[in-house]
């Protein structure tokens, strides 16, 4: 199988990697870039645990090939905090008990990051619709919505 040398730009840093054509972006982030915060929950594009931002848009990293992401600005959960400080969305997740096991959390954080950047004045119904893209098995979702709403309210 042919290997491809490429550069992924993740959270502003360049990662020069060599991967087979079939390697997904999620696997490349985890195994070739060492960024294991992006999780794989289903590998068929339903659960959203692997959600990352590619040029600002939330995508399923399990459904995109690494070679397709060359030249794009990729953002993952590892890029949210600045140094020792959680960003407001991460802080809201802990304040509102929006995570339990934490496995789906990186995906929800990235999904919500894109929502809040796009429109912090988003109505609750649209927030629910957007957040229904991802699955969580622990929290029952209510606290995730509260956390996102709290950050949206602070930004307005």
């Amino acid at each position: 199988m042919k290997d491809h040398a490429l550069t992924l730009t993740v959270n502003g840093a360049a990662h020069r990697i060599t991967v087979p054509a079939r390697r997904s972006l999620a696997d490349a982030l985890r195994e070739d870039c060492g960024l294991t915060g992006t999780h794989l929950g289903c590998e068929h594009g339903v659960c959203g645990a692997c959600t990352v931002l590619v040029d600002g848009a939330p995508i399923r990293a399990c459904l995109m090939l690494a070679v397709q992401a060359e030249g794009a600005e990729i953002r993952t959960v590892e890029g949210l905090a600045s140094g020792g400080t959680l960003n407001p969305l991460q802080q809201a997740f802990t304040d509102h008990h929006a995570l339990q096991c934490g496995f789906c959390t990186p995906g929800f954080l990235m999904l919500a990051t894109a929502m809040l950047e796009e429109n912090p004045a988003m109505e609750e119904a649209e927030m629910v619709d957007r957040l229904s893209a991802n699955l969580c098995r622990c929290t029952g979702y209510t606290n995730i919505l509260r956390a996102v709403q709290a950050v949206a309210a602070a930004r307005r």
Partner: protein
Amino acid sequence: MSVFGQSVMRLEDAPLLRGEGAFAADIDFPRQIHMRVVRAEMAHARLVSVDVTPALDLPGVIAAWSAADVAEVPPIPFRATKVRGLEPYCQPILAQGRVRYVGEPVAVIFAEDAAVAEDAADLVLVELEELPALLDAAAEPTDFDATRNTEPTIVRKSYGELDAAFRDAHVVVALDLAIGRHSGVPMETRGAIARYDAAQDVLELHGTAKKQHWNRDEIARLLGRAPSSVHLFEGHVGGGFGVRGELYPEDLLVCLAALRLRRPVKWIEDRREHLVATNHSREQRHRIRAAVDAEGRILAIDNVFFHDQGAYIRTHGARVADMSAGLLLGPYRVPAYRATGHFRLTNKTPAATYRSPGRFEGSFVRERLMDAIAARCGLDRVEVRRRNFVDVSEMPYARPLDALGTDVVLDSGDYALLLDKALARFGWDARVADVARRRAAGESVGLGLGVFVEKSGLGPSDGVRMTVDATGAVELVTGAASVGQGVETALAQIAAAALGVDYRRVRVVRGRTDRIEFGSGAHASRVTVMSGSATHQAGLALAALAKQTAAALLQTPEDALEIVDGVVRRVDTPEGASVTLGEVARALAPGTKLSRDRATPGLTVESWFHSDHMAYPYGVHLAQVALDRGTGQVKVEHYLVGYDVGRAVNPMLVEGQIAGGFAQGLGGALYEEFRYDERGQPLSTTFADYLMPTIAEMPPLDILVTEDAPSPLNPIGVKGAGEGGTNAVGAAIASAVDDALGGRGQVTQLPIMPRDVLRFLAEGAA
């Protein structure tokens, strides 16, 4: 103010929010290789041959095994109960002679790369000769092998004069009820990474959960090693719910391979595998009858049921059937009872526990029965429950039954009080009136309820070791485990409250067999009760030791001292002379004068808590639903969970458990089901087919946590909070849907799918 009972923030969150967690797939070791499992593609077949040689020819493949290569390893064991004779039905780690479910491990590949291992698995030639698949546990048993049939045992429990009660009954109510097959399905699939340290002769297994010490002992036994030479480690666990952390064939296979191949072996389950390989749960059919007097009081219940265990018995033995028999009666007084549980094998993925096992099923059955009794006797559904409650004056209430090997003694509870509180909070009476108005206007809306008793705090023993180091930091080493529910925070709060420190200074060690010799793990809502009680005792003992030592250092009587925020000081002059716990620890270091008076140096204690009986939390679920007459969709308009947990260590975490548990119950009530075709091919093998609730399906959820009945069985009064959110969701939603359909008792099965609702609506119109 004590941190016990406060909704303080979790200690667990920071690494999880930063993407710095250590889930199974995140664990790597130098020189590791990857395992891939070849699985059976027929539900029931004679295994004619397995040829792994084509796989071995692929570059990068290191080894490939079928049953003959692992014949010396005994099958997966189960935890003992009173039920005997189950051993012949246990699962071999690779199929021998027959395959009995789609997904059964038939061969394994080991390769340098996970993708190569997967490629190689496709090359293994498996010859199967199909046999008829048995898919209905209520059908006549067939042959399991040459000498045994597919009913390993019948679970029987009874007391009282059943026949007389049915003979003298005013009415007999009989129902045929079924619960669908669904399961925990955590967001993280399973994973197992084994490493053999030849230099120390120690086998390590990483990515474990739930039951490390039992699993360690069994892995050691099955592989012929001393338990002290096998260690299990727990990182982060992406949800447990009963299914994660059990001992599965893959756990043994990675361990065996690490020993044989002398390289670390990593296996990460994919989602399709998970849905056919990890424990299923719930599927049961009950033919239940109640003898009732003229006032709607229960005289006797006869509970005949068929438990669909799937293809093999794994770690739980017959425990779910045992609980379905022993815990069915819930909050009601039942003078005579008989349970006959047909524990049966079918050609489906093996089943075991899932959050509120046996009780989600039992509550659906019992509460459907209560609704039917109300209808037959012309009584209000709420009133018939009140008439049958065990009264608070009868507590503790001993039932002549056992479950999980312990006598069922309801330790405390005021069921009528919680029902009153829940109805008031929900606005039941106003909703009854509102529903009547909307029905008159042509809508199909209804209200439902489910009342239940949970169980928690399964014994017999748990211990902790609590130590303060020279900097004043506290380490709490437990035999408990964490599946993401907040164990560290809850135990740290209990420790901090008992000792007198900031809970953020307590580091909780869990899930590691190399740090504590014994442990019972995290399941059955047991950690807060058992490990929490041991922690409380340890904290008090450590505080006493610190005061005793500080008394010598400060030349002050012990009883004049208190510990606040990690400082030992005089109660009457808090600003006067004091010592920190770190200083006390240094005064007790090995070799010091004070340490020589003690058996063990250091500011450290070990404490054990023992319990012979379970603590029984209890709850009420109330639901309001509306049916879409066009699509058959059930919309849950409002829901309330009322739950008495004795005492809440952290109300925020308790509510989090209830909300998450509710969502899972909602899945089992309306959406989730493992379906099979007539040949036993699984149809629910992706998340597009196995439908778990998203935020869009969540109704407005109100949670009422009460502390009216602390448990008398432990020093902190707690009862487990993990399963009450799930327990009666099926019961309450079924009750509400049935009410919306006119209360005719049409709802007899879970999950309630849109096609069922359309059929019920058509039946009602006919």
